């Protein structure tokens, strides 16, 4: 059952920590300095995030987390997305930690996650394009991994990669310390740091491998997607509001742009797209707590399609309505647009999402 109740106390508290953080650290000029220096790679900043409980938010209490529901973390992630935060919060807090919490026995989960949730160790799920597993072979008690993962967000900061691998058709997850792999860092268009990770015969103990992890991986992928959709929704909302303000302020031909009927109708459409996005992310977050796994994936994929479409349309119109100012790096508009593009492209775009929707049906 989908419940659309407005945000509760805990939700709002978590969201406020994000708002303060963004206000303190992500003023545009400051962020631009970070971009040229050390995107998302400040240990002190990461520790602060861990202290705020962010990394532990959606992990169950039995695994040492805060046990918040997906719906409770949506507004918080929306703020971080709209705030253009560069640290790999989503990949750690919404993907790696919750996946491990499900895939591992609760004792092992608590032990493994302790250092992740405290911010000591940055750990990431790493899989090939569209979640494809890396090829693995067995040699005695060892597992040998070979392959290249072209894009891991935050990969250059990670201590441990949890590789999604496959040995003769049996899927598993296996932790590989960063020292054992070849990591090449590069920036993404939105300024986040990513890395190409090459496993050239990386060797690890079979005892560390986690099998029976498919359900956990599927859950983790869906949850991570809800996190990304929350970011997108936050960005859509902020871009809508910025554009609306600009239309009220900016005068042309002797009156505010917002008095031209064509602009009014386009802004009405942008408003509609924002509302739809908000509804869909709430729906997807709620679906995460349901027992019907196929329905969960279907609703998450539906939200993905709709929010991708709306993000594209909103960014297109926001740039156009800002005119020349929309294509510079001098207003937040351009930066938000790039973040939105990053998020919509990352998992293969609309068509991949529609494929997921159909498969889950």
């Amino acid at each position, binding site marked *: 059952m989908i419940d659309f109740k*407005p945000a509760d106390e805990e939700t709002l508290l978590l969201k406020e920590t994000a708002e303060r953080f963004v206000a303190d650290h992500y003023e545009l000029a400051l962020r631009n300095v970070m971009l040229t220096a050390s995107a998302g790679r400040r240990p002190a900043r990461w520790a602060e995030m861990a202290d705020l409980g962010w990394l532990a938010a959606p992990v169950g209490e039995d695994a040492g987390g805060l046990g918040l529901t997906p719906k409770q973390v949506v507004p918080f992630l929306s703020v971080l997305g709209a705030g253009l935060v560069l640290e790999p919060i989503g990949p750690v807090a919404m993907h790696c930690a919750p996946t491990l919490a499900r895939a591992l026995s609760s004792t092992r989960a608590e032990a493994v996650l302790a250092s992740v949730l405290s911010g000591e160790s940055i750990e990431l799920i790493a899989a090939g394009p569209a979640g494809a597993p890396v090829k693995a072979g067995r040699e005695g008690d060892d597992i040998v991994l070979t392959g290249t993962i072209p894009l891991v967000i935050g990969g250059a900061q990670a201590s441990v990669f949890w590789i999604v691998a496959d040995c003769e058709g049996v899927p598993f997850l296996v932790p590989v310390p960063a020292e054992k792999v070849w990591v090449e860092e590069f920036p993404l268009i939105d300024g986040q740091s990513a890395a190409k990770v090459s496993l050239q015969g990386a060797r690890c103990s079979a005892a560390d491998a986690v099998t029976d992890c498919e359900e956990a991986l599927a859950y983790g992928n869906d949850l991570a997607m809800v996190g990304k959709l929350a970011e997108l929704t936050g960005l859509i909302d902020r871009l809508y509001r910025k554009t609306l303000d600009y239309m*009220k302020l900016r005068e042309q031909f002797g009156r505010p742009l917002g008095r031209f009927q064509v602009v009014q109708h386009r802004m009405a459409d942008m408003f509609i797209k924002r509302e739809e996005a908000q509804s869909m992310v709430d729906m997807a977050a709620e679906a995460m707590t349901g027992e019907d796994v196929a329905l969960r994936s279907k609703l998450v994929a539906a939200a993905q399609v709709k929010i991708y479409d709306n993000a594209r349309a909103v960014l297109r119109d926001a740039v156009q309505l800002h005119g020349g100012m929309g294509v510079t790096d001098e207003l937040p508009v351009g930066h938000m647009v790039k973040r939105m593009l990053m998020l919509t492209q990352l998992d293969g775009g609309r068509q991949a999402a529609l494929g997921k929707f*159909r498969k889950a049906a």
Partner: protein
Amino acid sequence: MTDLLNSAEDQAFRQEIRDFVSAELHPETRAKVSRGAPMTRDDFARWQESLHAKGWVAPAWPKEHGGPGWTARERIVADEELFRLHTPPLPGFGLKMIGPILIQFGSPEQQQRFLPRILSGEDWWCQGFSEPGAGSDLASLKTKAERTEGGWLVSGSKTWTTYAQYANWIFCLVRTDPEVKKQEGISMMLIDMSLPGVSRRPIRLMDGTEEVNEIFLDQVFVPDDLVVGEINKGWTYAKALLEHERFGIGGIGRSKHLLQRVREAAQSTGRADDPEIANALDTLEIDVMAIEATTLRLLAAVEAGVKIGAETSLLKIRGTEIQQALTELMLDIAGPAALPTRDSVGVQEPFENAMYQFLNWRKLSIYGGSNEIQRSILATQVLGLK
């Protein structure tokens, strides 16, 4: 397609509706609805009788006036399920328009006299708002009422009057004061259509039906007790109508029903796996979900005390866009099979009503405040652009 409302209570309620419909719905009516055919007066009347007997005929009316006492959520579930089961959607002029107006603004005498007959279907109402040449600019109406002994003499003409051929009553907006600002001199009156001076001309629509009419009023006498509320407050009452059932204007049940029919048509003609058709169907299914999720989110906000105003215009805009897109998709699937007229020997199932429905539903984005008007309402009232 997926139901977002599927708690145990929802499911029990759905089952109750299914049981009721399977016992009551006439198979012929069911078949017509399932094929998208136009309804006759009898189809509506027969089904209204069943709903009335069950106490379900006016979902949004307060219990004391004969409503079933459903929550907003239950109304959505009922709407969805009734559509899914191919029951005919009853015309809303009595049940969703003048009924609620009388409940809110009518005199106790008017309520007693008219409400039970609306529920039972004894009275069939039509709406006299639009006038020839006025279009979306409703407030520029010219039908005038002149004061006379004990009432008013009304003259003028009304148009786009749906199902006036079946109606015995019409509720009209008329100008009672030509001197003041145009919105301020309008009153709402109830007119017996059998009176001398009331005449009707059917308008032939491009879909081949004659569901709308022009109504001429020539010195028709309306006694004071058939004026709704206060004189010169008619515009306020008409606007209040827009507030009523405004969470239902997304037409979720109607969209799901059409989607289901289009999917079945694609399947029965082997085109369901055609990637273009499949993508369009899935995209529209997701579009409907977005309207449903938005309706539920706005309702939850209202329940939590948030004030929601003209935001609901978005439900009208998107709902009608989706429904019109579905009728176009049906044409795409049909190809030349959509071309023979209904009831001709050329008809090819399941597309016998594809063209009728495409043509008929062009009205969705025009009536009840065109989608252009709705966007302007959003821009000015919600976004503050003016």
